[in-house]
Structures are given as C-alpha cells and as structure tokens.
C-alpha cells in the first residue's frame, strides 16, 4: 500500500455522506462493493478475507458466504461519478503532531491530509480526475536547482572543504529522505552543527531567516515547536502526497493541525497516563534527537533541499531558491546561492588589500605578490654581500648608488674566500706531503738503495775512435733510462786529447718534473793489471742544470788509455755502478717543467717554511691566527679610519693612491675601468690558482704513484707457499721429497725435504736448471719457514732467514738440521701420513746485472 | 514482520508453558502467578538418559528484564549441577559459554534455552563431569 497516496475518503467532496459508502472492514470508501442481505457494505477483498474465518457478516452476523454476496450497480455507478478534489487540493498534515515529533522516520508514520488554501480547487469525477492532475498547475515539481544540488555541491563546493565529505555522506545517509523529497533540508552551510537537529524538525522553511527564527523559537519552546513545526518524519509525506507547504510564506498556514488546546484535551483524557506521557515525551524527544544525531553524526552539515514546489510557483521560487546558481563576483564560477557568501569569503580570486602597498590583489596571489612584486615590501639587498634592507621599489636606486661599495665588498669577500681556500688547500697538501714523506722514509729505511752494475764492453775501440764518440745501450734504473757516452778526443776544445766520459739520463721519455739523485762510479778496467783500473765516483742529480749527463770531461789522456793496458784485442771494458739515492719531484725549483713560478706557489713555499717552523715550535695555531688577524686588519683598513690617510686603490691593477675618504669618489669616477681591472685581476688570479693547484696535485700524484710502486715492489710482494708432503712414509723411504717449482719475481725455486736416520732438514733451492731464470737479476729474500704441528699449532716450528739468490751465487738455503726425526714423527707434525710446510717470502731487494 | 511487544510474547510463552507441550522433559512457568510484569520464571529440566544427569530434576530460575526478547534472560540453576557453562559458585549459566545466549536472537524463547541446556547435558565434555549428589542446591 502506498502510504503517500491520499485516500479516496479524503479526496471526496461530499464528506457528509462518506460514511454511507465505507467498507465495514477497512473503513475506507469501498472498492468493488459487495453487501450482505442486510445491506452492510464491504470491499470484495475485505469481506472475502473475513469469510475465510467465519461465515457471517461482520456487522450483523447474518450468515454470509461468497455465494450470497450482492453487487450494487447503483453504488458502482455512484462511485464512478463521485466528485473528488484534485489531489493538489491537499497537503500532508500530521494528525498527531505531538507524537509526530517522536516517530522514528523509518518506522510507522501517521499522516493526515489538510486542505491547502493555495492548492488546486478543481473538482471532477473519480473517473476523470487523473487527466486533470497530469496538467494541474498546482502539481508539484522538483526544484531544478535543488535536484541538481548533489551535483552542484560536488562540483562547485570543492572549495568548501568542510562540506565535501559531508555532502557525500549526507547523500548516502539521507537517500530515503531525498528520494521522497520531503525534508527541506536546506543545506545551509552557515548553520552550525548544533542546529542540524532543529533544522530537521523544521522542514517547511527554506528561507534562512525563517529557518533561524524557527530554530530560535524551537529552542525556546520545544513543545510549541512540536505542535506547530512539522517534524521531519511527517515532512516526508509532504511531497509524495502532493502537499504544498513548501513555500515559506506566512499565509500558508496549516489547517488541520492540532492546536495546543486540542492537545491538552487529549492529555486530559489520558488522565492516568498524563505523567507518564510527559515523561515519555521528553524521553522520546531525547531519543529522536539521538537518532538524528546518529544519522548525521558524521556530517558537519546536512543537505537541505527545496523539495517539491508547485508548478505555478516554480518561476517565483527560482528567483530566490537557495540553490539557484550565482556567479562568484571574483572567480565567476557558479555556486548555489546559499553557499556563495562563504565561497566568496574564501574565494582565491577575492581582492584583498596588500598590507604593504595597499593595492588590491587577488587573495591567491597575495603571497607571491609580497614575495616578488609588492613595491613596499621590505626586502634585503639582492647583492649577497650587502646587508642592507629597504622597500622593493628602492632596489634599483640602491644598486645604482652603491655600486662602488658593492664592488669593494665583493672584492674583499673574494679575497677572503680565496685566501681561505688557499690556506685550506696548502694545509691539505702539506698534510699529504708529510704523510708521503713519512712513507718514503719508512720504505727507504727498510730498503737499501738499489745499486746497478753495468759492464760495458766496447768491442771495437778503433772504430769508436774513428767516430770520436760512442755510447752504450740504454739501461733502465728505477724506470729512468740511462746510458754511458764516451768521447775519445774530448767533447770540446778544452778537453782535446782526453777521454770524456759521462753518464747520461735520456730525458726524452722520462716523466717531467722529476729529478733523480744518483751516486755512481765509472771504471776503466785495466786488462793487463786490474789494480791499475781507473775508477771515479760521482754524485749527480739528473737532469743536471745545463744538460743531461755528468762525468769527467778530462778523465784520462787518450794516449794513456791506449797504451797502458786498458785496451786489449781492440776491446775496452768500462764498468759503471749506479745507485739511485732519491727521486725528487722538482716542480718547485725547476722552471723548465711547469713554469709555475707564481705567487701562490710562493705562498705555498712560505707556508711550508712557516709550517716547518711551526712544527718545530708547535705554534701552528697561533700563526694561523696571526695570519687571520692580518687579513682582518687588511679588510678593516678599507672600512675603518686608520692612521694612514693615503691608501692604494683596493683594485691593485689600478695602482692609484688617494685619501681614504676619496675611495668611493675615485671608484665612481671610473667604474668601468675598475671593473675591467678587476676582471683581469680575477682572471689571472684564477688562472694562476688553477695552474698551481693542478701542478701541486700532479706532484702529489707522482709521489703517490712512486710510493705505490715502492710499496708494491717491496712491501706487498710477500709470497706464501704451502707445501703438503702427502706421503711422508714414501719420502722417508726415498730419503727426500721435492716440491714443485714456484716462482718469485720470475726466479724459480723448490723445496726439498730430506729425511735421515736421526734428523730431518728442509732446503730451499734455486732451480738453476730451469730455463726461465732471469739472466740479469739477483734477488735477496727474507724467508720464514714453518713446519706445521698439526696437533698443536703453537708447537709449529718456525725458522727465519735472509738469503740472496742469483744464478751466480750459491743457490740453496737450509742449515742441514731442522728437526729430529723422532720428534717429527712422534710430536704431531705428521697426521694421516701428511706433513705441511708453509713458507713466507718477502723480497728484500732485486738486483740487476748488466750483460 | 511486526514486532510483538515483550508482555504479549511472555503471555504467549506462559500459555504454551501451561499447555506443557513437548515430551515433558522441560517445563516452565511464572514464579509468582500474580507477577504482572511476567519477569521471574521457574523452570525444570529432567536430565537426559545415559548421562550423569540421567533422570535427575534440575530447577532453574530465569529472569526476563524489560529488554526481553531483544536481549536474553538471565538463567540460573538452583539445583547443584556440574556443567561447563554453569558457574560453580552461584549456578548462573554463563552466556559466553552457552551459544544460544551468546548468539541470541529475538525469536528465541524460554523453551529454546531449556532445550538447549538439556542438549548440552548430553554433550561429550559434560558427560564426563562428576555430578554432585542429588538434591544439592546452589
């Protein structure tokens, strides 16, 4: 049954005679009328049901069955022609307004219908009324704005952060309500949450003012409101049943409302329950309030709709519908009327007054206006070194006026920064240098200088004499290529008749910036009497100042050489021994290799010397501080009064002098010139810095590289050889066991383990039979030999020895006694018929021989 | 479905209890015949055969407050009984230990609770429990 449909007995015009045509069971005007023999009227459906229970007329109890039910043609015709009002003649009222406020919306509802003075007055027969109702001017239509309300809210109210979610929630929660279009749930965003419940009770008011009024009155007298205000629950009937009521005009007074007098009469009738009812009333109001709270609890505001509007009133309604779209005066986006104020208050495009410059700015850009544009905003000078602040519009003036000052500031800052960086860098370099030196020293201390012996045999002396000059093949010491040169008749006029002999460094392909400090000897071997051999010793640093060779210009008279037994079979033997004492990175002193003779390097040197002193005095910090103080003093000199009134122009390329107070006048007088000077100064300074730094870095790199080589060669080349004698018994039977060959720097070695009756020993042998022996090398080794005790490693036997091996020298190491055979066999050295030997070698020296 | 008000539910129950439907193993009635609020009920369960409860008479008191049948009544044995769902101190049936009370539904009636309790007596955990001597009360 559609509870929103107005019952026929309400619509009927002739209310006087309605009772005559009511069904005795459902108490409505009969549908398909039937009667008993006594004329008691029933709807066919009603009596059919009753007859199933008992075969008598419910009113007169005469016996009755489906068979003897009577039709009434007259009544049927009468019903068809029954005059009824158009349904738009009525509006829904609540016959129990007192209770109505209490009724739960979702549960039972008691509607009633009242004549609406503004309603339709058309009367027609039951048969024809429907045709009228379709086109009735008083029919209800949805307000087009309100219907779109949901969308509007979603689309337009995005700015109203508070409402977004709420709208969604509300739409869900209130689906029932919305579908029935009952509550004028004016979603008045301005209303606080507190008012929501009240709004809910007050469905007929659209106008905000009225709404607020009624809320107020509600608060002041809940009883009155209960009576006069339609509760939300009953409001639901309004639209479905075609009640008008939605307009807020005062003329639209409810008609079939129970007034308070009626109410009191009801109450007086319920004498016994009066107290209870009052209690209950309050209680229930509380409950209903709670219910509403629950249903809206998650929502800050609730949506209120216009609901249905009479067709004829629609145009008027649209003029002041709270949901009618209004363009925002600032952003031009359309918003529902009721939310426009709040929107405009928050609109990003609303013009606000800039607090600084008083101009009108869209709110959205206010911040960027202050940050970037406002001429009155106080900003710091855009020139980073200047600490002045002023209004933005003054910026250009400031910059123009203080150009000279800014230049000086910048120059000072630059100088400070540069000298700071220099200091940092040179400190850094020095630290590194010290480290490197320490390492070098460490390595030097551990290793004696490599001494290279070269035997140079000049096979055809006569041929050599004919040319006047002969030179040896190159030999390379520590990566430096050397050769020996001999001039048989001197190398200039002074030395005619003498043999000139030199050790040359081939500078064509050595790393630049490196010098080597050498000690060397040159010997002419006397082949008749070796004791008469001529040996001279020299010290020289290559490359030397005016050339790359060092030796004797007049070493021996040519004829002495030729006649005193030095030459035999047209052969001359010269022996050179060369020791490299030091490899020097010499960029500091040597202009040829870098041309880095510039201020910074001097500073660096100075610093070095300072720091050396400091190191000695442990005054490092103090000195630095002094330096800083000096710098500061220099800076301050420019700004502060000082006892010398005449100063140099701070741009050193300018070179002018003037009184201190003239400095800005001087600069302003020739700004361009000074800028240019400054640029040049900067450029050369930066260039020299670059060069200096790169050369320093290069030097460090060289040092590091050499160190690395040294370390690699001398310290890291520690080798380990593990030898497992797998079958001790077999080796005992044989008397010895031999390891495989292993190589140290190309030298082939092997171990031999000898087992005798009472003792065992281990020997390290240089495998002279091996074909791969390097011909020109000898090697000094430190050997650590470990005979492992496999039961208790602390009992392992360890021998350490140093020994030199070469193809020429004695080529084995071992002392003939390592361990007693008994001890070896019984004290845990042998396990599972196995015996292990671990040898560690570190290379002390590799010696080169010339051919 | 129409909700039947509490009092008319209980009146119906009283009538069905007075008619003593079923097999006679359970019975229930108002504790006080003038109890116009129909709150306090007195019930009897005869223990099922082949259980330690066999043929013993168990008396219970049942209290339906104003929220019945939306909420279950409180149930208390007056005859001493050893059962998983019965508090051994005071004989109260612990709702959390009796599924019909835990998962109460407003369509359940007193009769359902009693049947359920009797069924519970036949459950294997309760079958193993030693029972106090006959006639002892909480």
């Amino acid at each position: 049954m559609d509870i929103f449909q107005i019952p026929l007995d309400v619509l009927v015009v002739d209310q006087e005679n309605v009772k005559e045509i009511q069904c005795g069971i459902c108490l409505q005007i009969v549908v398909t009328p039937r009667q008993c023999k006594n004329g008691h009227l029933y709807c066919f459906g009603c009596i059919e049901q009753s007859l199933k229970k008992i075969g008598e007329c419910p009113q007169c109890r005469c016996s009755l069955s489906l068979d003897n039910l009577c039709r009434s043609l007259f009544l049927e015709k009468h019903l068809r022609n029954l005059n009824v009002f158009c349904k738009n003649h009525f509006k829904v009222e609540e016959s129990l307004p007192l209770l109505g406020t209490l009724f739960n919306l979702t549960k039972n509802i008691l509607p009633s219908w009242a004549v609406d003075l503004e309603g339709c007055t058309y009367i027609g027969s039951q048969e024809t009324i429907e045709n009228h109702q379709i086109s009735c001017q008083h029919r209800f239509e949805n307000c087009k704005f309100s219907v779109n309300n949901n969308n509007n809210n979603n689309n337009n109210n995005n700015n109203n952060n508070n409402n977004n979610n709420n709208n969604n929630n509300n739409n869900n929660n209130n689906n029932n309500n919305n579908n029935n279009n009952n509550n004028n749930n004016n979603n008045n965003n301005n209303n606080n949450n507190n008012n929501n419940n009240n709004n809910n009770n007050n469905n007929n008011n659209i106008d905000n003012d009225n709404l607020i009024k009624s809320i107020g009155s509600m608060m002041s007298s809940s009883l009155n409101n209960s009576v006069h205000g339609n509760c939300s629950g009953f409001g639901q009937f309004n639209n479905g049943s075609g009640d008008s009521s939605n307009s807020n005009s005062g003329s639209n007074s409810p008609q079939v409302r129970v007034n308070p007098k009626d109410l009191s009469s009801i109450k007086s009738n319920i004498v016994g329950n009066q107290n209870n009812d009052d209690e209950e009333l309050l209680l229930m109001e509380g409950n209903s309030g709670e219910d509403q709270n629950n249903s809206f609890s998650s929502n800050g505001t609730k949506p209120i709709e216009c609901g249905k509007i009479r067709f004829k009133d629609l145009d008027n309604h649209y003029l002041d519908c709270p949901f009618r779209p209004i363009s925002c005066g600032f952003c031009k986006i359309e918003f529902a009327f009721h939310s426009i104020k709040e929107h405009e208050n928050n609109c990003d495009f609303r013009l606000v007054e800039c607090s600084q410059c008083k101009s009108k700015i869209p709110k959205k850009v206010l911040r960027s206006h202050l940050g970037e544009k406002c001429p009155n905003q106080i900003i710091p000078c855009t020139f980073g070194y200047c600490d002045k602040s002023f209004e933005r519009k003054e910026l250009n003036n400031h910059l123009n006026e203080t150009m000279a000052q800014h230049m000086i500031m910048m120059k000072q800052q630059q100088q400070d920064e540069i000298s700071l960086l220099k200091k940092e860098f040179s400190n850094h370099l020095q630290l590194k240098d010290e480290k490197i030196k320490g390492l070098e020293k460490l390595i030097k201390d551990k290793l004696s200088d490599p001494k290279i012996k070269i035997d140079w045999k000049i096979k055809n002396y006569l041929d050599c004499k004919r040319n006047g000059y002969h030179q040896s093949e190159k030999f390379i010491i520590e990566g430096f290529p050397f050769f020996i040169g001999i001039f048989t008749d001197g190398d200039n006029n002074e030395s005619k008749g003498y043999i000139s002999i030199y050790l040359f460094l081939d500078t064509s392909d050595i790393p630049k910036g490196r010098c080597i400090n050498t000690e060397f000897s040159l010997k002419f071997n006397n082949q008749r009497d070796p004791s008469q051999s001529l040996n001279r010793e020299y010290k020289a640093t290559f490359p030397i100042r005016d050339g790359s060779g060092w030796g004797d210009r007049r070493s021996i008279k040519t004829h002495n050489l030729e006649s005193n037994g030095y030459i035999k079979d047209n052969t001359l033997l010269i022996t050179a021994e060369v020791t490299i004492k030091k490899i020097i990175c010499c960029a500091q002193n040597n202009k040829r290799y870098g041309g880095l003779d510039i201020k910074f390097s001097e500073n660096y040197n100075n610093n070095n010397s300072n720091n050396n002193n400091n190191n000695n005095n442990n005054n490092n910090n103090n000195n630095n501080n002094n330096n800083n103080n000096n710098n500061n003093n220099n800076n301050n000199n420019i700004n502060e009064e000082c006892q010398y009134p005449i100063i140099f122009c701070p741009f050193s390329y300018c070179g002018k002098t003037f009184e201190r107070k003239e400095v800005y006048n001087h600069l302003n007088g020739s700004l361009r010139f000074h800028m240019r000077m400054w640029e040049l100064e900067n450029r050369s300074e930066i260039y020299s810095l670059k060069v200096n730094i790169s050369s320093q870095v290069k030097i460090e790199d060289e040092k590091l590289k050499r160190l690395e080589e040294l370390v690699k060669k001398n310290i890291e080349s520690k080798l380990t050889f593990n030898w497992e004698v797998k079958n001790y018994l077999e080796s005992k039977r044989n008397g010895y066991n031999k390891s495989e060959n292993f190589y140290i720097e190309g030298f082939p070695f092997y171990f031999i383990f000898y087992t005798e009756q009472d003792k065992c020993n281990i020997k390290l042998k240089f495998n002279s039979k091996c074909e791969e022996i390097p011909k020109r090398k000898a090697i000094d080794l430190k050997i650590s030999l470990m005979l492992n005790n496999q039961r208790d490693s602390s009992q392992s036997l360890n021998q350490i020895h140093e020994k030199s091996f070469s193809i020429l020298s004695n080529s084995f190491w071992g002392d003939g006694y390592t361990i007693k055979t008994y001890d070896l066999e019984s004290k845990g050295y042998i396990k599972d018929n196995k015996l292990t030997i671990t040898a560690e070698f570190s290379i002390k020296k590799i010696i080169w021989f010339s051919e | 479905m129409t909700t039947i008000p509490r009092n008319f539910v209980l009146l119906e129950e009283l009538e069905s209890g007075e008619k003593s439907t079923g097999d006679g193993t359970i019975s229930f009635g108002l504790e006080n015949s003038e109890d116009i609020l129909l709150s306090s009920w007195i019930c009897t369960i005869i223990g099922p055969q082949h259980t330690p409860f066999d043929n013993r008479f168990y008396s219970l008191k049942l209290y339906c407050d104003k929220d019945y049948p939306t909420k279950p009544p409180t149930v208390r044995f007056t005859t001493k009984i050893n059962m998983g769902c019965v508090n051994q101190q005071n004989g109260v049936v612990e709702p959390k230990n009796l599924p019909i009370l835990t998962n109460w539904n407003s369509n359940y009636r007193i009769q359902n609770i009693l049947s359920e309790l009797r069924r519970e007596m036949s459950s294997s955990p309760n079958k193993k429990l030693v029972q106090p001597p006959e006639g002892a009360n909480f």
Partner: protein
Amino acid sequence: MASLPKRIIKETQRLITEPAPGISATPATDNFRYFKVAISGPLDSPFEGGIFNLELFLTDDYPMSAPKVRFLTKIYHPNIDKLGRICLDILKDKWSPALQIRTVLLSIQALLSAPNPDDPLANDVAEHWKTNEKEAMARAREWTRLYAEQPIEN
C-alpha cells in the same frame, strides 16, 4: 517496516482526535501496533475513580483477528485474572472485523460496569462475587483505591 494498514492509521487518528469518553489509547513510538491504553473506571461501579492502564496489541492478522488486550493495573474483577487477562467474548470467538479498537475498549469499559461472574476467568473472584456480591464489590473498590488511583509503575 513496510507499511501500516490504512485502517490502523485511520483508527489511530480517530482515537486521538476524537477519543471516546473515559478512554485514551496512544500508540507506542517504536511500534504503532502497540497501544498504551487508559480506561477510567465507570461511574456507579466499584471501579469509579480509578484509572486502569492496559496494553493493546494489533497482531499482523488484525482486523481479521482480535487485538490482544491486558490490564496492567491490578483489578478485582471476576472476568479479569491476576495477570490482567480479560475474559471477553469479542476478544475471542465473537470477534468480528467490523469491530475496532474503540469498540473493544468501550466493551472493556462496559465489562467493568457489568461484571459477569458466570463466565469467569478468575474463579476465586467470581465465586466471591456470586456468594457475596456486596463484599466483593467492596474489595473491588478497595483495590481500585489501592492500585488504580496512582499511575502504576512499569
């Protein structure tokens, strides 16, 4: 709940807007089929001056079945038992769908005026009524004063 039959709506409206004298019936807020009823004791009866509370419930079957009615106020009456149940033919086999809440309540009111000890529900009261009507009516008056002149507490 789906809906309330129009007949019940109509009856409820009439009960409230045009209450029968001495009778009020108000539906419960959470159940429109459940009514709180108050009947004032008829004049010239032992129940005069009392307000008797009843509860009334319209089953799903109403109006094809009779409403269920019960006194909540204790009353000394041969046709009303200790639990307030009423022995009245129209509430049982004599129900007719043409009857209404109003007529039922009027019948109950009439029953108070005219107890019928020959069709008793409370046997002891009926016996009392038959054997010593005067004393029984005095008891009824006393109960009325005791129980019906104050709102009962429920």
